[in-house]
């Protein structure tokens, strides 16, 4: 508490006292650098954090101009004012008045100039840390779109959005979250397009978030959603997708240190939309949209329905198909439900292993999975061929809608159990339960299930079909105009 109060206090006019405070705060940390020098007879120091700054920029852009300048003023305060107004050519310089501000700037890659006898300091933007170069996002590839994906530094991500949306109404709001990490978070929205209640709601939710550390965007998701089976917070790694969503009245949340940007509010139907849909021709985009719906149903329900029909309702199948399945299953020792559960869990284990093992070993994992476990289990008579086929088809279908992979993986297991215990009744009632769950969700007062239920005919142009840009361009779909929405669009200030 005392430390906090001290941080908020203004600087002393003694440079030595100020330096003692910084040294105490950083406790001789090896990356804390102080370059002491004199301006005339007045002691001065440049503070910085090693690794966050560009040393050449400090030498050429700050130290050299100061040392070369004809500074005739006698007291420190006047000297620093002269330096600020006449000597330095750096564009990014901010005057700081207390220790807290100075520490924040230091840890954001600024260099801080302090002069003895002066009660303020100047921070210079000389960031020069290394980071991953801009690459195509591996989780969100597009055939016909930009190859740029977000990277880790917040400022670069902000610039990527700004470059695509040259609009003065595009706003970035800065928040600091995480008691220990002090992570910078930016809210990005388009004034006039977004509903003010949505921005206020997100702001409040984030400010109220009690977190010690914020190391990834995912840390913030629970504070922004209601907590249903499907999330009402979207994630994207693509600046073009984020710009599209922001233009539709959504708020993007950029978190420093992570390439994943959160999108709020995010509706259920958006999980089936991808950037390529809008780059391809409408008839093909509509076709792929329907493929995604089909893949979602296969990935979620097929194993459950297979188990339910095989166990309780074989009369629903035509005789030749039924004979084939029963022939394959007759030789296996386990019931259909157990087989499906075991295969499903085995697949998830292999998937997790595939994600974590070094790339060089991933082929070995695939071979073990496909040949050893799959082929051998069937030939040994432990698992029926049809069950393996169903689980394999299900697994592939799950990747057609990657945004829904997590809920699908869990719901699928629930449906296998429901189908195995209650037959199609279980599937149907489980389905009703899931429908109820997603129907009860609202994303910042916009129904999560809009525009399907509550139904909006006009909005079907991007749900049932993907209409041509001639139609989509005329009436852009604003999230707050969705049927059943309890918010309205804000006005441009």
């Amino acid at each position, binding site marked *: 508490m005392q430390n906090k109060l001290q941080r908020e206090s203004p600087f002393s006019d003694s440079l030595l006292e100020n330096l003692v405070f910084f040294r105490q705060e950083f406790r001789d940390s090896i990356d804390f650098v102080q370059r002491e020098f004199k301006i005339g007879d007045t002691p001065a120091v440049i503070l910085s954090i090693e690794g966050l700054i560009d040393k050449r920029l400090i030498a050429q852009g700050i130290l050299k101009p100061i040392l070369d300048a004809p500074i005739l003023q006698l007291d420190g305060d006047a000297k620093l004012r002269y330096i600020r107004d006449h000597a330095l050519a750096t564009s990014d310089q901010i005057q700081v008045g207390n220790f807290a501000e100075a520490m924040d700037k230091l840890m954001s890659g600024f260099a801080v100039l302090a002069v003895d006898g002066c009660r303020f300091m100047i921070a210079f933007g000389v960031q020069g840390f290394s980071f991953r170069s801009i690459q195509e996002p591996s989780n969100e590839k597009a055939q016909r779109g930009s190859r740029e994906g977000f990277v880790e530094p917040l400022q670069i991500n902000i610039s990527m959005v700004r470059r695509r949306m040259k609009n003065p109404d595009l706003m970035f709001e800065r928040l600091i979250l995480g008691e220990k990490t002090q992570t910078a978070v930016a809210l990005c929205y388009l004034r006039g397009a977004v509903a003010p209640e949505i921005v206020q709601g997100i702001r409040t939710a984030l400010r109220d978030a009690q977190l010690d550390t914020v190391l990834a965007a995912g840390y913030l998701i629970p504070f922004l959603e209601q907590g249903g089976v499907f999330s009402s917070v979207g994630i994207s790694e693509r600046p073009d997708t984020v710009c599209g969503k922001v233009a539709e009245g959504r708020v993007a949340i950029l978190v420093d240190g992570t390439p994943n940007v959160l999108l709020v509010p995010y509706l259920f139907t958006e999980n089936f939309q991808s950037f390529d849909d809008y780059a391809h021709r409408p008839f093909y985009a509509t076709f792929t949209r329907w493929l995604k719906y089909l893949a979602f149903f296969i990935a979620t329900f097929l194993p459950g329905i297979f188990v339910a029909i095989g166990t309780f309702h074989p009369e629903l*199948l035509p005789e030749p198909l039924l004979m084939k399945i029963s022939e394959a299953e007759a030789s296996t020792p386990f019931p259909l439900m157990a087989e499906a559960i075991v295969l499903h869990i085995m697949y998830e284990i292999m998937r997790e292993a595939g994600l974590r093992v070094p790339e060089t070993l991933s082929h070995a994992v695939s071979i073990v999975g496909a040949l050893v476990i799959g082929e051998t289990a069937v030939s040994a008579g432990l698992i029926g061929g049809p069950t393996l086929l169903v689980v394999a088809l299900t697994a592939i279908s799950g990747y057609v809608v990657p945004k829904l992979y997590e809920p699908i993986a869990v719901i699928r297991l629930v449906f296998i159990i429901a189908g195995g215990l*209650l037959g199609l009744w279980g599937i*149907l*009632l489980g389905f*009703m339960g899931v429908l*109820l769950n997603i*129907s009860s969700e609202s994303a910042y007062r916009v129904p999560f299930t809009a525009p399907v*239920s509550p139904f909006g005919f006009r909005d079907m142009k991007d749900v049932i079909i993907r209409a041509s840009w001639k139609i989509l361009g005329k009436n852009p779909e604003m999230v707050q105009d969705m*049927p059943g929405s*309890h918010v309205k669009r804000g006005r441009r200030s």
Partner: protein
Amino acid sequence: MNQIGKISAGQLFTLAFLTRVIMMLTVDSRVAGGKNLQDLTLSALCYLGLNLVLILPAWFLHRRYPELDLLEISGYAFGKAGGLIALLYAAYFLFINGYFLSNFQLFMQNEINTQVPVWVISVALLVVAAYGAFLGLESIARTSGFVLILAACGMIFLLVTLNQELRAENFTPLLYDGPGQTLQGTLLFLSRSSFYCVIPFLLPKTQGALKCRYLFWNVGLCLFFIVMIVTVCGTLGPVAGLQNFPVYTMAALAQSGPFQRLDAIYTGVWVMGLFLTTALDLYLISLCISFLWGKIAGRVAILAGAVLLVVGCNTFLASGEVVAAVFGIQTILPATMITGVLLPIIILLAVRHKDKTTQKKEVR
């Protein structure tokens, strides 16, 4: 912009349509008369006309107090005695749901050779329905939107598949055996119209073009009934009158491509409709109880209602004879008419009288 906690008129009548669809799907030849089921088309038309009239008490109440539901109005009219009306409605919703659920259980026991015990299915259905009631009206209404799409697709597929089974010789002239069947059918439809009791609770929670949607819903429902009856009679002919659940028998005849039987669609639509009806009724029971004893009691009432339904339907309502005796038209029709029509009329007269008395006092 919509008001929080309110549903749209479209959602209200979607919900109403789906909960009424089970009236048609569960038409029982024994209850409906069974001589000439084709006359039920005339019953559907009569039902359409009566619907337009019998809804009027609830409508007038809503017009007078658009923001208040029936319980709040009765509380205003009768003071503490209004609590009795809340109890009466809670009992009615429990009773009518017991009827729908026991009918479903009898169907499962007698028509479907299911390996899963029927009570287990009932318990599962009530768990999901209670979950819906806990989530509230908006969630149930939004779910009904999805169910409508599924039910419509399923029924259209079924009817298109059955189209080739229709035989002209299966049709008989209307009113061939006199008006008895039509009358019986109309009474059956009316007796199952718990919608009259539901609507005074839901109108204040609804926004949008009510009159237009109500008309649309009524005509849609009537058309659905007529199409189903014509398909049943055209497919099954005189055999329809001998079936306990003729619509199910018709669905069992249908087959398409790899699917040998399409009765799963029929039972699926029935279960979805029953689930919505049960969720809505449990929600309304909780409204009635929370009017009397507060919100927590209302929540407990959902669970208690679900338990009562399961226990009741699996003990003394487990046999067909008992169900026929308890849930005959002679009991359901008066119950529905009293709670759906008579009570709203009495409440309407009472509030008019109270308003007039208050006005006179103010003038003096």
